[in-house]
């Protein structure tokens, strides 16, 4: 009678070196360990498995490979010992190369497929040594198999363009701005966690963008004007004298410099003969193009950020426990203190979650619920009223500020005090409002603070655009106002708040309380966003503003860094950076959108001042476009654009976009339902598997172990090097299985 002998599993042979003893032999793994790499077992796959069970150990030739040397750096004893053989590397690499060769598109000898090979290599989840081995084998096999067909001229051109483009992109990546301030960012991340680091990354990104804008506007607008000013033919003297306080107020001396719109000439600059520079055209096109570029960059970043944090993650945080454990530890932490804090914060979060489970679902009585909702509604209305009051006060201040010197100071002072004080006020209000979730509290406070800034900026813009008629050179006055606000904001939010923070620090130190406080990421980020909004409002009328703001951001970086390092401690609660980042980007995007819309309106429908500026001989600024392009107003394209931008056309576009969004949303919801259905199918499939294994066990009475790890389907590229065993390289034939199975049939 044929009886299958219980052979000791072949993969635990005695002639292996010690290093592999810690691999768990196959037979000792539970039969119930299902591997999703395997499919539902079929007869032939079962055949392969059982064949592999009885496979003999192949003797290996270890002699040719040099064993590895492990060197301990400790001076006490230099221990060197040998680790496992390298013979395994070759075999494993061969397996992987075989698998990769199946894909025809990787094996051609073209540059395109070389790129594909590089990508495939990078995505291979193996060690670097293995990857280099695979790469050399791949290139060898490709060069052996390549059939050099002569490629035509156009194909060669296409390939060379492709290669040079990807080389260019790679060199750009080499030069990317990640290098800027890299050391200090790493230090902050290591000591305080990735929450604070996210604020600094955001600051750095905006700094780089503003720097680019500043360079372009300085080079193309300010420099030509300066050249004109200093050229011999055009000596104009400044009618105002310089006063120190002009730096803060921005008027007086500065009004007749390149700071503001008013000073720019509306003529051709022809300092070097035969080389004329059309100033008005340059002014218009440079500013418009820079606005559009910033808009595009922001739109792309917002979309990418939204996709990464909301769409790919379904916007939900249902797996709270799993997330805390698997994603809780911040791998960038590098100091003991931060690590201690991190682990205690995870501990507290888990404890909190556990205690919430114990509590019953809050069954608030109707009265309590009603009361909470009323309070929330009332507070929201109150906040809206406050915002309206702020707007009205700004309006009044703007009116008064034209009537005297002191009034100018007062305006700027009052606005900045509002911006400094009100966010903390909102924060305290929202703490008492009893929202269910601390995240909602955070978002509401952020929204209110943002609205505050928006209201202030909006009223300033509206005031100037409406009162443009009566004033001489209103653009310059508006730009001066914005400049004033920026400087005062710098004084308040940087200088004054540093003094206040240091004061608090010293005070708490003497009161014997914990002197270090947490760094308020939300407040500082909103400050930067407000700053950026100011920049965009003013840039159209003051080409030097980006340089000023860039300088300000540079100073802010170092000041905040110093504050964080000396005065702050790591946060107690984890700052969920990813989702709040998306909100911040969206806020900035909405700002630039609204500002561009307002400027577009100003360019089109607000009369330019006739006494100053590069557009003083036009009625409206956009006319520069129409007069430069001949017969534009009769042109079909222009008429189409004009009609489309009328209210009716815009409404139509909005409706069409709305329908598109609705369609996409329904699509997403349908996909979600499909996912749910597929999940249920998975559960049923697993149950099927269990059932079949049970049946198999019953039939064979447990004598053949149905280890379901189907080696035929195991991806050699996904095995760790020290797990690579012979089974993966073994082959199976079905006859043996049938021979054995015959007795049961």
């Amino acid at each position: 009678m044929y009886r299958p002998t219980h052979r000791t599993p072949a993969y635990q042979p005695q002639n292996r070196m010690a290093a592999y003893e810690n691999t768990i032999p196959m037979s000792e793994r539970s039969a119930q360990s299902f591997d999703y790499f395997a499919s539902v077992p079929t007869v032939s796959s079962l055949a392969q498995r059982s064949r592999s069970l009885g496979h003999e150990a192949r003797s290996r030739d270890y002699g040719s490979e040099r064993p590895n040397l492990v060197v301990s750096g400790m001076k006490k004893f230099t221990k060197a010992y040998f680790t496992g053989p390298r013979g395994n590397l070759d075999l494993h690499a061969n397996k992987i190369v075989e698998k990769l060769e199946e894909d025809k598109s990787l094996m051609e000898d073209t540059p395109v497929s070389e790129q594909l090979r590089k990508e495939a290599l990078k995505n291979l989840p193996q060690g670097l040594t293995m990857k280099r081995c695979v790469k050399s084998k791949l290139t060898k096999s490709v060069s052996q198999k390549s059939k050099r067909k002569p490629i035509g001229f156009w194909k060669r051109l296409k390939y060379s363009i492709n290669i040079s483009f990807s080389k260019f992109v790679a060199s750009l990546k080499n030069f990317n701005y990640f290098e800027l301030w890299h050391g200090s960012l790493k230090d902050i991340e290591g000591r305080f966690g990735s929450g604070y680091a996210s604020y600094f990354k955001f600051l750095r990104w905006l700094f780089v963008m503003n720097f680019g804008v500043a360079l372009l506007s300085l080079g193309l607008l300010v420099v030509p004007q300066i050249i004109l000013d200093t050229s011999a033919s055009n000596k104009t003297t400044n009618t105002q004298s310089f006063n120190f306080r002009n730096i803060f107020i921005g008027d007086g001396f500065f009004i007749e410099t390149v700071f503001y719109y008013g000073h720019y000439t509306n003529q051709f600059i022809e300092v070097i003969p035969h080389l004329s520079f059309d100033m008005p055209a340059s002014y218009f096109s440079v500013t418009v193009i820079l606005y559009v570029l910033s808009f595009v960059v922001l739109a792309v970043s917002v979309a990418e950020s939204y996709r990464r944090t909301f769409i790919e993650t379904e916007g939900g945080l249902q797996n709270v426990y799993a997330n805390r454990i698997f994603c809780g530890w911040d791998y960038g932490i590098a100091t003991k203190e931060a690590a201690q804090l991190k682990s205690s914060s995870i501990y507290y979060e888990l404890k909190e979650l556990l205690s919430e489970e114990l509590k019953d679902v809050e069954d608030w009585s109707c009265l309590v619920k009603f009361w909470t909702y009323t309070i929330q509604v009332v507070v929201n209305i109150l906040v809206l009223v406050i915002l309206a009051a702020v707007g009205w006060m700004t309006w009044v201040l703007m009116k008064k500020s034209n009537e005297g010197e002191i009034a100018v100071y007062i305006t700027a002072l009052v606005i900045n005090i509002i911006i400094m004080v009100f966010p903390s006020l909102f924060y305290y209000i929202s703490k008492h409002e009893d929202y269910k979730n601390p995240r909602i509290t955070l978002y509401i406070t952020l929204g209110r603070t943002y609205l505050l800034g928006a209201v202030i900026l909006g009223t300033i813009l509206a005031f100037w655009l409406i009162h443009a008629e009566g004033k001489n050179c209103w653009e310059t006055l508006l730009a001066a106002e914005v400049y004033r606000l920026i400087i005062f904001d710098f004084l308040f939010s940087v200088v004054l708040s540093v003094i206040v923070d240091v004061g608090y620090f010293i005070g708490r130190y003497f009161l014997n309380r914990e002197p270090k406080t947490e760094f308020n990421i939300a407040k500082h980020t909103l400050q930067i966003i407000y700053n950026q909004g100011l920049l965009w409002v003013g840039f159209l009328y003051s080409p030097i503003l980006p340089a000023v703001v860039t300088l300000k951001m540079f100073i802010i970086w170092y000041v905040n860094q110093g504050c964080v390092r000396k005065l702050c401690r790591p946060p107690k609660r984890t700052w969920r950076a990813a989702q709040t980042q998306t909100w911040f980007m969206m806020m900035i995007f909405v700002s630039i959108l609204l500002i561009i819309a307002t400027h577009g309106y100003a360019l089109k429908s607000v009369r330019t001042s006739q006494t100053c500026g590069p557009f003083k001989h036009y009625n409206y600024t956009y006319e520069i476009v129409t007069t430069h392009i001949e017969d534009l107003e009769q042109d079909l394209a222009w008429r189409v654009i004009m009609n489309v931008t009328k209210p009716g056309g815009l409404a139509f576009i909005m409706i069409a976009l709305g329908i598109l969004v609705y369609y996409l949303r329904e699509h997403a919801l349908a996909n979600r339902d499909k996912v749910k259905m597929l999940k249920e199918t998975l559960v049923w499939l697993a149950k099927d598997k269990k059932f079949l294994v049970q049946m198999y066990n019953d039939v064979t009475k447990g004598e053949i172990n149905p280890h379901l790890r189907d080696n035929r389907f195991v991806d050699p590229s996904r095995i760790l090097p020290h797990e690579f065993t012979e089974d993966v390289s073994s082959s199976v034939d079905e006859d043996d299985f049938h021979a054995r199975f015959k007795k049961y049939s």
Partner: protein
Amino acid sequence: MGNKLLTFTEQQLENYQDCTFFTRKEILREIRPDLVPKRMRQNEQVTIRVPLEDVVEKLPELRENPFKQRICEVFSRDGKGNLSFEDILDLLSVFSEQAPRDIKVYYAFKIYDFDNDRHIGTEDLDSALVLLMRQELSPEDRQQIIEKVIEEADVDGDGKLSFMEFEHVITRAPDFLSTFHIRI
């Protein structure tokens, strides 16, 4: 220090650039004296291995990491935690910002699978929790948390997490990419 003997050829640098997610500049930044093993000479990037304790000392992020043992084991060629220079480069490449999500998820799974059985079972979760908390969580608390995790994440009802289930959980976590990241 003996590292003056260490230079990399153009070919080697290009190889590294092709096989990792680093740019050339970042690779050159890697070759700093505290990361490269002292006695390493030319062409010994693969064979000289540094034992676990020394590796952990060289990288401050690893020193404070509760899973340092496991990380070193996963990235080493012998499974015991002794890393060669190329293994360290590989480790940093996977943890870099440019590595795609899939690679990170794959290695995260390997790290959290303490007993190497291709599933994250209750013992694995238990070890992870013990390592993560320096303050002690009581065993009942741990048990409860583990049950909750399995309940949330397990789809096919076998009581542990396979790679697919783990991947499914992690891709829905918005913070994974930002926390699973070491800046070099």
